[in-house]
């Protein structure tokens, strides 16, 4: 069977970066037939034209419900979905829900072969989330740095302090008041604007 040698995998994800990361991972793992669907209009028709063995979809995608009708055996559904991964493995569905992805197996695909695909999906989705997290943290840190620098400048000007002294004053105040240094810095900026 062709499907046995190289299953066709459809990735349904409106986030092109995440979809690319997942596709790359699947290709590295030897899954050559991977197709991405990023446009949700006429989703079912697109899926039928790809005719995949496995469908991967992100959980924040409202179109997940569209796939549910592929569970129904009817004239409209050519190859029904045989199962949703959790039917065999509660731990793997928990991990995939946590990661934000779900997988459907289309009729005819051997379910033992899904495990490696799911594991890969979970790790790539988690890697993407981590990346986004780091990006968010870097952005926040950068913004905090700007606030602290502005407050430092205000203190230096108003109290005639050196840069080092201004920073030490903010840090010791933060420690005494059990607050973050950025909060103290923000209060200084707010106060100075009020007193202008």
């Amino acid at each position, binding site marked *: 069977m062709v499907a046995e040698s190289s299953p066709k995998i459809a990735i349904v994800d409106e986030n092109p970066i995440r979809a690319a990361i997942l596709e790359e991972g699947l290709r590295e793992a030897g899954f050559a037939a991977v197709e991405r669907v990023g446009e*949700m*209009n*006429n989703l*079912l028709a697109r899926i039928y034209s790809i005719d995949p063995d496995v469908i991967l979809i992100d*959980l*924040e*995608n*409202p*179109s*997940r*419900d*569209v*796939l*549910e*009708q592929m*569970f*129904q*055996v*009817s*004239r*409209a559904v050519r190859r029904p979905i045989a199962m*949703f991964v*959790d*039917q065999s493995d*509660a731990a793997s*569905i*928990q991990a995939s*829900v946590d990661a934000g992805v*779900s997988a459907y197996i289309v009729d005819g695909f051997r379910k033992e072969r899904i495990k490696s695909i799911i594991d890969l999906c979970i790790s790539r989705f988690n890697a993407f989330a981590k990346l986004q997290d780091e990006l968010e943290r870097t952005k926040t840190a950068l913004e905090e740095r700007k606030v602290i620098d502005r407050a430092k400048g205000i203190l230096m000007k108003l109290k005639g302090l050196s840069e080092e002294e201004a920073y030490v004053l903010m840090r010791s105040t933060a420690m005494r008041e059990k607050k973050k240094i950025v909060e103290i810095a923000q209060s200084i900026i707010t106060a100075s604007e009020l007193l202008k």
Partner: protein
Amino acid sequence: MTDNRKPGSLVPLRIGFIPLVDAAALLVAVGKGFARDEGLDVTLHREVSWSNVRDKLNLGLSDAAHLLAPVAIASSLGLGHVKVPIVAAFNLGLNGNAITVSPALHAAIMGEVDGDPLNPLVTAQALSRVVAARKKTGAEPLVFGMTFPFSTHNYQLRFWMAAGGVDPDEDVRLVVLPPPYMVESLASGHVDAFCVGAPWNSVAVDLGVGHILHFVSDILARAAEKMLAVRQPWADKNPTVLASLIRAHDRAAEFIEVPDNRAEVAAILARPEHIGVDAEVIRRTLDGRLKVSPDGKVRESGRYLLVGREGAARPDPVQAAWLYAQMVRWGQAPLSDQSLAIARGVFRPDLYDAATGKAGRPETRVADGVGAFAGPAFDPSAITQHLDSFRIRRR
């Protein structure tokens, strides 16, 4: 009391919902502090798909959920998905959906209407003639959007068109569409019509891309739409928490039905973290006063969406049996006495009565509990004979 609630401390609960007006009792129970008064600290989780709501409930990632009534039954029967027994002890709403059609399909149906267009038999027969004419010219079959394979929307559309002689599987195409995509799909011509809950029908009318052809209350007088659902093992382990949750919801349902409270209710529902649409649009649904066509025509109905009145909040096993009968009629489920008993058992008026202290089945004018516009009165003890009376069916 078998669950170990500490006196004085709040019980944390995670509850999933889809941003729709029929989540009103849940959103008001939390938003007005009724849940807190019952000792519950509810965190609401807004979800994007019914599959997510169902899976998170099944996995225990949420404790309770605003759930499509047929999904509660399908889950308990293991249809289409994993088998997880569900307890539905509070009915979040009866009715509340509408069938909206594109201006082109509206004109075509009105051109064929022979009688009162508010009569669903008249419009269904008109639709049948439209479908026949399209077949003759070789036009593509009409496409109807609905929200989920196991949804009242699916069954209401099918019941309606089949009564007029349109076979929902042969003569037209029924497709699942997420509610937020319905209006866009109607505007772009991907679908010709849809059946969905509020606020999406009103949004289509306001944008001039749709006409509301029917309130689903034209098709069935009383249809269980969304339930407050919990897992059976959770219900068994947390009986007093469940009772508190039911009481908080019942208080919210009563609050919602007081006309003077409607503005406040609409404002709570309209919040961006809840439904996130204009309060005025939500208000129309609560009042059952809807603009039905882009030219501004308004239709008013006392049965559009029933949240607490006429005993709507009390789960009615007859409704569950009717929904199960539709699953059988359309080939989603085999017919068996055992499955029927399981389906009926999902709806738990006994738990509702015990929690609220209200006495028994409410009086309604709907004799068989369903009030369908076509076919014989519904008798849950004779589903085979009932289904045999319909010509178009999959079994």
